[in-house]
């Protein structure tokens, strides 16, 4: 049995761990509110963007001459995957879930004999992927320094992707991120951004007759790169809300577990203290009797 002193030390160490997890939970909760707000505020932009692109792509007459970003290169050999994770740990299954989803996809690609290229956004994703897929990672990006998620960071990632596309380094591009549903649930998502999937065509939008200035193709070729940045930005916003949510519930669990541990240790401490007292009493009494 551990001595009284050891128990005391353990209790105090668990207690200070609990303090830290509690504080982290509070911080995550505050950040979560902000992240959620900005995710909601960012929605109109990406929704409108999507709508305009849908209208435009419906209006395009000549499919063969459509911009490559929309129709693809016509091949399906090289896949680029942008895996978006957090820069910090201690957020439960957040990163692991994205990686798991991504790995399934990677396996599928490799089994089909296609080439895989990976861009990691966030350091945690790189750490988890470098062992198995180290050779496939062509770029790693991290925004550790920027405090808030801003559009220009997303734009940077978007520009890298587009540059690589123009150099014909890949045919299909997919992004991986966590979609925020609520504090407990985040759903890992796989979204193809190049070529753009326009399967969800709105029936009501196809009837509109728009005037385009300049021509549809020209607007589209300007708009599509922006759309990629927008999609990445949206993914980043969703991701940050998910990260904070995930961290909050993870830290909540940790705080609760620490509480249970303190309770158990306290009982053990009290028991052994009582045992020591009883032992001393017996010693005194038997000592007195023998006189």
């Amino acid at each position, binding site marked *: 049995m551990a001595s009284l002193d050891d128990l005391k030390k353990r209790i105090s160490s668990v207690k200070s761990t609990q303090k830290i997890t509690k504080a982290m939970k509070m911080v995550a909760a505050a950040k979560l509110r902000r992240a959620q707000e*900005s995710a909601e*505020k*960012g929605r*109109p*932009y*990406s929704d*409108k*963007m999507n*709508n*305009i692109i849908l*209208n*435009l792509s419906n209006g395009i007459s000549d499919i063969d001459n459509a911009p490559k970003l929309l129709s693809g290169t016509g091949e399906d050999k090289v896949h680029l995957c942008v895996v978006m994770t957090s820069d910090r740990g201690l957020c439960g299954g957040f990163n692991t879930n994205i990686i798991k989803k991504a790995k399934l996809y990677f396996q599928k690609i490799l089994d089909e004999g296609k080439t895989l290229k990976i861009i990691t956004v966030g350091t945690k994703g790189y750490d988890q992927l470098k062992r198995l897929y180290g050779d496939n990672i062509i770029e790693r990006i991290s925004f550790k320094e920027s405090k808030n998620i*801003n*559009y220009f960071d*997303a*734009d940077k990632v978007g520009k890298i992707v587009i540059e690589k596309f123009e150099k014909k380094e890949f045919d299909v591009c997919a992004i991986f991120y966590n979609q925020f549903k609520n504090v407990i649930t985040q759903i890992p998502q796989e979204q193809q951004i190049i070529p753009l999937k326009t399967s969800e065509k709105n029936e009501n939008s196809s009837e*509109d*007759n*728009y*005037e*385009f*200035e*300049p021509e549809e193709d020209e*607007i589209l070729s*300007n*708009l599509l790169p*922006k759309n990629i940045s*927008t999609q990445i*930005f949206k993914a980043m916003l969703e991701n940050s809300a998910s990260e904070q949510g995930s961290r909050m519930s993870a830290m909540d669990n940790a705080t609760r577990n620490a509480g249970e541990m303190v309770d158990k240790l306290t009982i053990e401490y009290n028991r052994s203290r009582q045992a020591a007292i009883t032992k001393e009493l017996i010693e005194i009494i038997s000592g007195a009797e023998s006189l």
Partner: protein
Amino acid sequence: MSEEYSVEIVNPEKSFLSKNDVTEVVVPGFEGEIGILKDHISIISFLKPGIIKIFSKSGEESFYVNDGIIEFKDNNLSILTSLILNLKDIDKEKISEIQKSAEEELNKSDINDQEKYLLDQKLEVLKSIN
């Protein structure tokens, strides 16, 4: 009959401005300035760097935009832009900052004509503000 329609300006971070009593909006379209009045035909266009002017009952407002797309439909004007600044409370330093980065960009050798054109436009507009 009222001559008013509604306009909404969105940037990636948030909905920047929303008004429903505007009478005319002048936007820097890629092929020249476009003034939009009520019951304009549905139009999609994109913008070059320039000044958006919004005329409404409550007065006139001007904004600087870096780029953008506009969509006008059923008397609703949506403007999507990545960077927008209100000219009223504009910050001289910020302008110089954008100006400087544009100049740097212009000095790079690997830009195409369209980019060069846009950057020239940008610098011209920025100089006129400052």
